[in-house]
């Protein structure tokens, strides 16, 4: 399978800060296959985002596949973020991603509509 796995890029917060106006926020791009194989990596990325204490915009427009493990990691992230009063928003979600979240009953917690 030649598809890219997991989270591929999140742009550098400093660069974002230089280019964009306040409020400062980090952007997280999720794409390709989000699955158990990439879940550890995804968790690392999300932990970094939590440490940044900035608001986060998540782009899941190009997620082609998502499984329970990945959704679970994201759910934990959202819960923690809400607990820390961080602002997390979706820029866009692929249909696959939305459907999976809905199937597991996680779409409200993940604030996907």
């Amino acid at each position, binding site marked *: 399978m030649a598809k890219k796995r997991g989270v591929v890029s999140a742009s550098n917060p400093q660069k974002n800060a230089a280019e964009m106006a306040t409020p400062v926020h980090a952007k997280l791009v999720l794409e390709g296959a989000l699955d158990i194989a990439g*879940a550890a990596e995804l968790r690392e990325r999300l*932990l970094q985002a939590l440490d940044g204490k900035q608001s986060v915009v998540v782009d899941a427009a190009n997620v082609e596949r998502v499984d329970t493990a990945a959704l*679970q990691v994201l*759910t934990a992230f959202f*819960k923690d973020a809400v607990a820390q009063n961080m602002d997390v928003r979706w820029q866009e979600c692929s249909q696959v991603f939305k459907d999976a979240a809905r*199937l597991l*009953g996680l779409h409200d*917690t993940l604030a996907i509509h």
Partner: protein
Amino acid sequence: MAIDMEQFKVTYIEESLEGLDNMESHLLNLEPGSRDEDAINTIFRAAHSIKGGGATFGFSNISEFTHVVETLLDQIRNGEREVTQQAIDLFLESVDCVRDMLATAQGGGQSDASRSTELKAQLDALLVSDENFQPDAHPMPGDSQASPDEQSIASEWNIRFKPFPGMLATGNDVVRMFRELAELGELHTKVNFAELPALTDLGVEDCYLSWEATLKGQCTLEDIKEIFVWVEDECELVITAAPSLESSDSIDSKDRSTDDKPVSGINGASDHGVNVTTAAARPSSLPSENKSKPQNKTTAERRANAESSSIRVDIDKIDSLINMVGELVITQSMLSQLGEEFDIERLEKLRDGLGQLERNTRELQESVMRIRMIPISFAFNRFPRMIHDLCNKFGKKVQLKLSGESTELDKTVMEKIGDPLVHLVRNAMDHGIETPDKRAEAGKPETGTVHLNAFHQGGNIVIEITDDGAGINADKILKKAIQRGLVEEGIELSQARIHDLLFQPGFSTADEITDVSGRGVGMDVVRKNIQALGGTVDVQSTIGKGSKFTVRLPLTLAILDGQLVRVGDHTYIIPLVSIVESLQVHNKNVNAIAGKAELYKLRDEYIPIVRLYEAFHIEPDSRSLENGLLVVVEGDGQKAGLLVDDLLAQQQVVIKSLETNFRRVDGLSGATILGDGTVALILDVAGVIRVSQGRISHHDSINANGVAA
């Protein structure tokens, strides 16, 4: 995305058959009342995978049947049930039954459902019988596969699903399972993530979530369970019909059922529970696919070809093969380099190189042949079961001893030797071993022994079947033979000759005919089959002590040790195993019989002379017997002298089938390609004798046989 499921089915069936063999051998070792956890677990796992695969590939009869077996096994595994002889016997029968089902699945066609139904009823009865053994009314939550409501259709189901933490790591994905559920009807999911830790403490492969779902739609409990079949022992799963429609057989979800009612719209998103509605996309397309049984047209032919077409090869063998090819490539490049700048002084080097090439080729050939070699334990494995069954049947006590199970032989030979071996072992059980009281009378231990032994000897594999039973009564055989007119009265026969009579068609010494052996259609077939493989079978026996049958087989059918002979311009190959001796003809020993045949007096026997040039209508060097050589061969228990012009080398030849490349020819078993590129035909000794005997009268052939000489 169209995936060819057929290829996986084949693998599934092969693996299941292996699993069944495994189950069987462990079941046979299981003593009633034992708590051998390893064995029970192995048996359980085998049943579990067969069930799971069966459901996946749409063999619902297999998965349903195995499910009951598995449930029983699970109770035994959990210590809720004792291992009884009754259970072991039932399991063994179930193994046979599933084996049949798999054979049917493989070959297509209809299986005998009555047997499985009956067996399943027995298993169910057992399942219910010692209910008192366990506190709960139901063995396992949701394990009511056999209960009548299995097939009942409810329009609303409550599903409580709590995966064990390790479930995701085994490759099972809840998203996928729920997607399949959603295809059955309208699915409402409510997740519980009370146990979900903070991201910092989260193990990414552990599952912390659990779900409660309601499924609205016309489907059966079975449809739902099919989805969860692979994770059954990796989760807590409770499926109940919604109480509004049907009385629930559930144990503990009644108190929750009111909460389970889907709430339309979005209710207040609490931290712990959210209701979701997912529309049914393609209702019930999946189960209908899964249920269609593979009932195909070409039953008969496919079953006939049931001999397995794939082979498992030890990785070591492949590695050594690759090494060998590497060597060959090196040698080849050395030779080609030598060829580029060749002068006569390097002749020695060229010779060395060619010698090396020869060595490499031979080694490579041997390695390739070894790939087809599998240990004889594959053929031996069926015997413990057979002995077990036959012991029950005859009321005899027999201990089976196996040795040399790791002796390897060609897969094709193995497949063909199975039935003859079964025959021989059955005979040993039926005629050989006596009943316990008779044995006690004879001062022997009550338990008899049947010993199967295999070993290599020269280029052959030798299989010995030894029993310590009554032995073969030579007088009785002789009497029977005289009665049947096989032997003339008053003739002295050696012990070996008498034993040889056992292999005559239609011969049986059993006083009464049983369905195991004694109809006299055994031993001659055994010998014929073994001879067809280029092997021999002998018997040695001592009255009161037991008998020993020795089967000798070539290691492989693809290569043969041959004697090259020349007749005129043609080269023929005579299999070395069938050659007794070669000699020069002395005219004084030749007797012609009334223009029909010529006999050669070889010591105390008369053997017919077969002039090969006549048999094959070719022009020889000389038609005179004295100028040629006589090769004495033996085939089908008959000797004959083949007249050839010259003996050439002995060499191993690779057998090419004449039937696939040309057509079947009487008297020839195949062909091979010689070193100079010409084709040489391999003689089928028995066939040649038969062909030539077409010209000899019946009476003469009996004399020629030497039986009465």
